[in-house]
């Protein structure tokens, strides 16, 4: 069921798309696909990859998470204010930050599954709530402990020839793949995504699955927040804003069906890299901002036409 042929084929398309972008880039801009360049893009893509993991989970059941930007930002600020830059406090701070993500995700899940609020509304509202809380509680990032840096073990995630961050991404990839393809939970996720009523009738706890997925999405947004703080040393306000639409785009370019029920995280990894590669390539070619936006949109459309189409109605 999970490795059905259309799903697997879409992953291949997504990978082919990434390779195509890299090859075109390398031809037009020598050195674009060199290892050092690729490594730089992979690190940047890993942040998108983290948030897209959460976004993919909710998209698999036909939902959407618009609360990602400020969950990410909130978790990032919790991490620094709780750790105060001390290595000994890092584990607690990381757990706290992930906990914030999980809590907000849980709220989203309960709202969507039990109260019947449409996912768009629930998560959009939650994004506003988190923005207000984050700004208010940190007094606009001027609180006494807001000047702390991320603890040094976290910051070393990004040093070295082969940054540990990439291994962390591999870890996320393994977790997602195992969770979705090898566990009962994963099979239930796809079942709910394909047909929630049928899944419910066959005994799947649809609400429980939904709540778990939104919670995980919050955790992944928080994880991205932690990674971004580790990368830049400190959080800033608006840290998560670029990831609202980018997470959706990465999921879709990765071959996940927006209607739910189909898709694999391997494709999302490829999708994240494709998006970053396109942006990087256009900047390297010194395409002005307006051209970058237009071409970015056209590339997404082209990819959608290639493998994002729905079945024809008869």
């Amino acid at each position, binding site marked *: 069921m999970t490795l059905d042929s259309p799903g697997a084929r879409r992953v291949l398309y997504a990978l082919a798309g990434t390779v195509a972008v890299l090859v075109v880039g390398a031809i037009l801009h020598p050195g674009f696909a060199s290892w050092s360049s690729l490594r*730089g893009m992979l690190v*940047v893509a890993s942040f998108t990859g983290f948030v897209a993991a959460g976004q993919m989970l909710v998209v698999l059941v036909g939902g959407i998470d618009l609360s990602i930007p400020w969950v990410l930002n909130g978790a990032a600020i919790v991490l620094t204010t709780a750790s105060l830059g001390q290595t000994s406090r890092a584990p607690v701070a990381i757990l706290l930050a992930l906990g914030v993500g999980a809590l907000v995700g849980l709220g989203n899940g309960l709202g969507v599954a039990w109260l019947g609020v449409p996912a768009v509304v629930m998560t959009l509202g939650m994004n506003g709530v988190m923005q207000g809380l984050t700004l208010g509680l940190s007094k606009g990032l001027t609180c006494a402990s*807001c000047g702390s840096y991320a603890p040094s073990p976290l910051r070393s995630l990004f040093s070295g020839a082969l940054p540990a961050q990439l291994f962390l991404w591999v870890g996320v990839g393994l977790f997602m793949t195992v969770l979705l393809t090898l566990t009962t939970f994963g099979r239930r996720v796809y079942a709910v995504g394909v047909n929630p009523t049928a899944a419910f009738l066959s005994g799947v706890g649809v609400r429980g699955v939904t709540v778990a997925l939104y919670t995980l999405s919050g955790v992944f947004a928080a994880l991205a927040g932690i990674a971004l703080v580790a990368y830049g040393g400190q959080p800033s*306000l*608006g840290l998560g804003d670029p990831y609202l639409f980018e997470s959706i785009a990465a999921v879709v370019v990765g071959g996940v069906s927006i209607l739910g029920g189909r898709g694999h995280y391997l494709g999302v990894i490829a999708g994240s890299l494709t998006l970053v590669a396109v942006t990087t390539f256009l*900047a390297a070619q010194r395409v002005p*901002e307006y051209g970058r936006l237009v071409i970015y949109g056209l590339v997404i459309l082209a990819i959608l036409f290639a493998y994002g189409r729905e079945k024809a109605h008869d």
Partner: protein
Amino acid sequence: MNLPRHPGRAARAAVAVVAATLLLIVAACSDAGSPASTGDAKAGKIKIALSNSFIGNQWRVEMENVYKAACAMPPYVDEVECSVFNAGNDVSTQSRQISNLISQGVDAIVINAASTSGLNGVVQQACDRGIVVVSFDNTVDNKCGLTVNTDQIKFGQQLAQFIVDELGGQGNVVMVTGVAGTGADNDRNKGAKDVFAANPGIKVVATYTGMWDSATAQRNTSAQLPNLPKVDGVWVSGGTDGVIKAFAAANRPMPVVGGEAENGFRKFMAGLLTPKVKGMSIGQPPFLSVISLELARAVVKGEHPKESITIPFPVATSDNMVPGETVFPDLPDSFFADFTDSGPNAILVLCQEAATDGTPCPGKTLDVKLPS
């Protein structure tokens, strides 16, 4: 989720709880927000409101904090009744707020606009009713209002000239721009491009946006760097510390940097963070809000002609870094280190608490010298 479901009793209970909580929070918060606007206006106190657009970045927070601090310090605490409103990046919201301020009958409105052109209509209505309108930073185009600003074209020129001079007119330069479609971004880029174009030895090898955001600037720089030849100079419109962090992480030789006034950038310039960076830091000062407050007050009181003001930038270079004055080791990297002017000709002097907490500086009268 497209499962058909019907909320039951639990849902109704939850709604009631949420609604009750909401009411409670509103009640608890309702007067915390604008402390200066409560209480009866004493006779002779003039009402000046700050209408800000976007609040989700540190510069805007500091700008509001110093405004609140100034309002709580003499002479403003005795003469002016202040209030502060945020609209977000939405022109309609800000228009509504300004209309409401007109209804409230304020004497002056100080504006940092969501769009330089988007408020022309409502500002005209304020002017028509004799309200003094002073806009700063992202100013309002409408000529009936006054403006307090720095010269954004000069911002671009001066940083670019610094880089050209440091490099002796020879070398590869990268430009990291801001948010496309805004007046400030256009002006800054124009100023820089003119200077670089006038120096044939300077080659601009890359131009990309950093969205005036350190994290974005860092990500974009990291992705670009492997594709770039040796970089001798970097011109940054905003997010400077992110650009430097990307160079450091890639183990590239550190170029000469001309950038904004982020505290993180200044920490690198002062050698508080490694590697030490040779650079020039020019900032759009957050205290523009306080100068606007003073201008508004003076114009309402008839002490100052109705004229716009252009103030010089506070400029800092890596040679004159003073902890506690131009760089702040204990404050976040994203903090803007130019919240106060300094030097003998300072327009005004503010303390650190004013910028971080919006509380008044102890035992001080705030003296704002408007440049003529």
